[in-house]
């Protein structure tokens, strides 16, 4: 057992899988000689060489599309989008191709592809560099979407993703890269489509993923001082969406707050709320409350940027509104 940052845990996951399986290779902008924008691939170029650590031109459509083709033909590419903001350029390659090919050709072709992308609001990164858009990717059948909330999950989830035969968008919250978790020395995988209870409590269910889990846990500590016990569910994989733990928790607490770093309209929170009212209407003692980013593009100035974003205090407030 040792403490590793999420960055180092992801690096360990990638490293272990590249050592284990020669078909696994990585490609992306500045991932090799430059060591990776987020330093997840630091040292890989020197260790694995240019064939398996492929620096690409600035060509998001081709990065996603070429990786898809290589996956179709039998390799197991892990393509890196420097940030999810740039992945919008690759939307067609990922959604119209990677996610559809298995179905469109009736299962003849599989696409064992992982697209990694840094996600989340940065410090004053402004409107085009401040997306947390997992829900729009998770809209489409055929794609798996995962986003870990800590270093431990990140390692087990990424390893599972690389071994899976489906196309997967795997996003990594930039703000979580430096944060450490205890990581066991022995290998472990976190199965795709498995949510987790991150804190137990009887009074309210807080559902989130990624950065939102951190705010939920922080809010739960604050609420505990007032004798309010929140149960925190980390969805981990937006697709396939595992509602079992959320439903089980909700049937106990009868109240729910959804926390998301992303925008409120047609969102993660909308989906969780809709599924709860469909599956557990009789257990509902209050409307499901959503804590989301404000419905504006993110601005530059720190004062107003922070106003637009969720935080633990806003989660505490929302919980009090549903009690």
């Amino acid at each position, binding site marked *: 057992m040792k403490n590793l940052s999420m960055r180092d845990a992801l690096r360990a996951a990638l490293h272990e899988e590249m050592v284990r399986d020669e078909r696994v290779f990585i490609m992306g902008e500045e991932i090799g000689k430059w060591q990776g924008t987020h330093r997840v691939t630091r040292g890989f170029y020197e260790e694995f060489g240019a064939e398996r650590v492929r620096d690409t031109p600035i060509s998001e459509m081709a990065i996603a*599309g070429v990786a898809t*083709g290589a996956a179709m033909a039998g390799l197991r590419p892990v393509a890196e989008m420097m940030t999810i903001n740039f992945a919008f350029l690759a939307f067609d390659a990922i959604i119209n191709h990677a996610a559809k090919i298995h179905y469109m050709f009736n299962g003849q072709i599989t696409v064992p592809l992982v697209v990694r992308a840094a996600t989340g609001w940065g410090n004053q990164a402004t409107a085009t560099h401040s997306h947390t858009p997992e829900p729009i990717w998770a809209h489409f059948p055929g794609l798996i979407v995962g986003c870990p909330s800590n270093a431990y999950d990140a390692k087990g989830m990424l390893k599972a993703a690389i071994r899976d035969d489906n196309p997967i968008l795997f996003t990594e919250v930039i703000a979580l890269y430096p944060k450490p978790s205890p990581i066991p020395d022995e290998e472990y995988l976190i199965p795709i489509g498995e949510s987790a209870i991150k804190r137990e409590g009887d009074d309210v269910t807080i559902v989130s993923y990624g950065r939102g889990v951190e705010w939920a846990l922080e809010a739960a500590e604050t609420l505990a001082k007032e004798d309010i016990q929140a149960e925190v569910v980390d969805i981990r994989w937006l697709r396939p969406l595992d509602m079992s733990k959320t439903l089980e928790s909700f049937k106990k607490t009868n109240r729910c707050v959804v926390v998301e770093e992303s925008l409120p309209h047609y969102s993660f929170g909308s989906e969780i709320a809709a599924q709860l009212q469909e599956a557990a209407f009789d257990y509902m003692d209050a409307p499901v409350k959503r804590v989301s980013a404000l419905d504006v593009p993110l601005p530059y100035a720190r004062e107003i940027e922070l106003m637009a974003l969720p935080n633990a205090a806003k989660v505490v407030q929302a919980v009090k509104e549903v009690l």
Partner: protein
Amino acid sequence: MATKTESLTKETLLDWYHDIVLIRHFEDRCHHLYFEEKDPARKITGVYLHLATGSEATHVGAVKALGEDDHVITAYRDHGIAIARGVNPDRVMAEMMGKRTGTSGGKGGSMHLADRDLNFWGGYAIVGGHLPLAAGIALKEQYVKSGNAVLCFVGDGALNNGYFHETANMAQVWKLPIVFLVENNLVGMGTRIEESSGQTNPIKRAVGYGMKEGPSVDGQDVVEVYEAVKAELDWSRENGPVLMEARTYRFEGHGVSDKAFNAREDLKGELAIWEARDPINVLTARIKKKYKDVDETLAALDAEAVRIVDESVEYAVSSPAPDYNDLIANVYVGFEAGV
């Protein structure tokens, strides 16, 4: 271009003739089943049906240049390429009719034929979207040092899409074994190449990427296409990508939605010129120049093609439609749909 027909056997030329007339009859039958067939159980339906009529020599010549372990991928005008690669016409027609026995189980349709066992990776319907897939397949072959290459058909219109730019550049940077064969029929859906492209010579696009400028061949002549594509595939195995062109024409417009293109008065003369260079006529002339007394043989091959198409229609008509279980199958590997 110098031809080397001496090296091709009579059997080979007749084999190509068979495929070309088979594709012609197949496409003519699709046209009939779409527009004229009255029996709903025998009709081809849907909004998309892009016929290869007029382009058969380009499709057959290029595909025959592939080795067994090489790969081919294309856009939505894919019927002829599928048949040339050896996909059973029964299964192609069944896919046209949306049947479970189709190449894609009735889930792909006309634009999404594929046969993984034949390294025919399919037809794709987002213009340019298949280009990086082709490069990815080539990357795999380079990665495992197989010596196999990829033939990627690309329309002249698709050269103006960002996918082409990004893929061409990356393929050249990585020296991927791929031949981009521009199927230049002079027009996108309706917009002419000179109205859509600053550089109307497709091969000149290669210069911007440092890529090999391959030959421009007569796409109506199956022998010329075959020899040029074979040579470029072999070059690409060791040296990297090539951009080449086959000059061809659509005899039936863009697709079934396009009833106007070939009826345009200003293009009547052009169509007549190209119809005079029908791939079937060009190959027939080649065969007759070299061999005597082939009329009966060619007529027999033509009748054989009609019989194969007849059988494919009966096979498709008598095949079951996909059901609910098919609808929800193969969304994921190992996970249920609707989750």
